[in-house]
């Protein structure tokens, strides 16, 4: 059932370090909404997704846009700065204590063909798969989705074919951040969290991207599953504290053996 978790990581497809921050923030806001206003965590995304979208969009318009022309290092550092701010803001506001969400929903299990399945995990898995699917459809079937992909490939060329690049960038960023927040909200159902939350997960996300290749959501799904499988095996044989290492070891091995990532290598092989 770690497939579900892996799919969530996949959804995030992190290149943007700040995503980790928003992921964590998503978790915290969900918790805050729950404890302060008694809003059920399943409903929290209804507030989180639009709010985060706006934040992401605003972020792009004000800060990210200014550094687009400079060396890529600069935008990396900018987003890193944003993440630093978010993480430490969280420390300041909510302290480093571990938080978790406790409702009957979170504890529930369901019996299915003899297996005890945790309801939250099922839920997360389903939602994760749904989101991936919707995202894939959006990116391939809608104009906006294709515009985003075009802009990601070549900004100038996109402008030349009439795409309003400024608007697209804002929207794409907004979507990315909204997804991160949503992911965080989902994950809050499964784990307890501290402000450090985003970091370990962003590493896994990154592993997934390297494993699955950057270009396709299918690749990401593939990478997620691969990582989830690796972790599932790891759980059996390794002490708990080393589990985070698994993704890292896999990453290193893959990088040494297959510089293009698994999907990239498969593509190259298929081409002959």
């Amino acid at each position, binding site marked *: 059932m770690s497939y579900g978790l892996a799919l969530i990581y996949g959804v995030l497809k*992190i*290149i943007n*370090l700040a995503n980790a921050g928003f992921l964590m923030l998503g978790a915290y806001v969900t918790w805050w909404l729950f404890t302060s206003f008694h809003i059920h965590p399943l409903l929290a995304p209804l507030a989180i997704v639009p709010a985060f979208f706006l934040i992401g969009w605003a972020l792009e318009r004000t*800060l990210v846009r*200014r*550094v687009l022309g*400079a*060396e*890529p*290092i*600069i935008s*990396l*550092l*900018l987003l*890193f*700065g*944003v*993440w*630093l*701010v*978010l*993480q*430490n*803001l969280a*420390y*300041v506001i909510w302290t*480093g204590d571990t938080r978790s969400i406790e409702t009957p929903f979170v504890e529930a299990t369901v019996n299915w063909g003899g297996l005890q399945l945790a309801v939250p995990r099922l839920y997360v898995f389903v939602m994760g798969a749904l989101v991936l699917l919707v995202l894939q459809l959006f990116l391939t079937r809608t104009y906006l989705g294709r515009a985003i992909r075009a802009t990601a490939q070549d900004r100038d060329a996109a402008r030349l074919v009439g795409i309003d690049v400024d608007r697209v960038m804002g929207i794409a960023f907004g979507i990315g951040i909204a997804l991160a927040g949503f992911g965080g909200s989902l994950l809050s159902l499964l784990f307890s969290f501290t402000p450090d939350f985003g*970091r*370990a997960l*962003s*590493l896994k996300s*990154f*592993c997934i991207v*390297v494993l699955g290749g950057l270009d396709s959501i299918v690749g990401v799904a593939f990478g997620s599953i691969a990582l989830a499988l690796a972790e599932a095996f790891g759980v059996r044989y390794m*002490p708990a*504290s*080393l589990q*985070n*290492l698994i*993704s*890292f*070891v896999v*990453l*290193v091995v893959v*990088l*040494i053996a297959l*510089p293009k990532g698994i999907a990239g290598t498969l593509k190259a092989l298929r081409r002959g």
Partner: protein
Amino acid sequence: MLLAALIALPFVAVDQEYAVEMLFLIFLYGAMATAWNLLGGLAGQISFGHAAFLGIGAYATTVLLAKGTPLAVAVVVSALLAGAYSLLIGVPAFRLRGPYFSIATIGIGEATRLIALNWDSLTGGASGLTLASAPPLRTQYFAALLLLVAAVGIAAWIKASRFGYALAAVRQDTDAAETLGVATTFAKTQALFISACILGVAGSVYAEHYLFISPDSVFGFSTSIAFVIMPIIGGLGTVAGPLIGAVVYTFIREQFAATLGNADLLAFGVLLIAIVVFEPKGILGIVDRIRRAGAPRAPAAPRPAENADG
């Protein structure tokens, strides 16, 4: 000049142990920031995991000293171990470019911390290791100063040398550099190795000063972050930048240490964003702008708006 003053200081300011301590920290951080800057600033490969090398140096020194190794030997071994580790992780890491490399370094730093955390027999796990006694503060002061001078010297020498040009080319455009004959991966590896060795020595100094090391303190992510922040504040890729950054960093840390626990990192995050957006070249960049604005007669760099006849 300045150097002479710094050398004389501990003898003169006999009662000002606080000042000596502060300067010690500045020297140490300055050396570490300078080391990071070799790879991050000169070569343009931003690493968020450099604490790994500090940690290896610190642990190596502590373990060896506990076994009775003379200090000098321990320091050299620490440096070499850190360097060896850098070569090991360099192989997979340098297959990645730009942001992917940087994200991978987060993982490397984190993984190293986890290894240290779990390798109880060697590292004492979460409870860390302690050293019996520290050399007098004055000795430490000079050790740190020496390290700083060495690090800065190395950085300045590299920057003016052929190797420095290679790194600059790598930072600007790795592929174009390749077509001009620069063996880019090798250059990056060399920069990484040197920075790791310096950090290894810094680890020794660190261990001797704090007398207690743990995976979270030396391998921690916030330590890695510090290495990134300092050169950016001062001026990424310059020789003096990391030093200026170290001064700023030490002061801000001291100011905030008493208040809300993580407020200092918060301040750095904000500062980082401000710098990146307004003056990516850091404080030295601001200084440069002021200087150019105040000297209209000096040959200003032609602005790209002029369609100069190339």
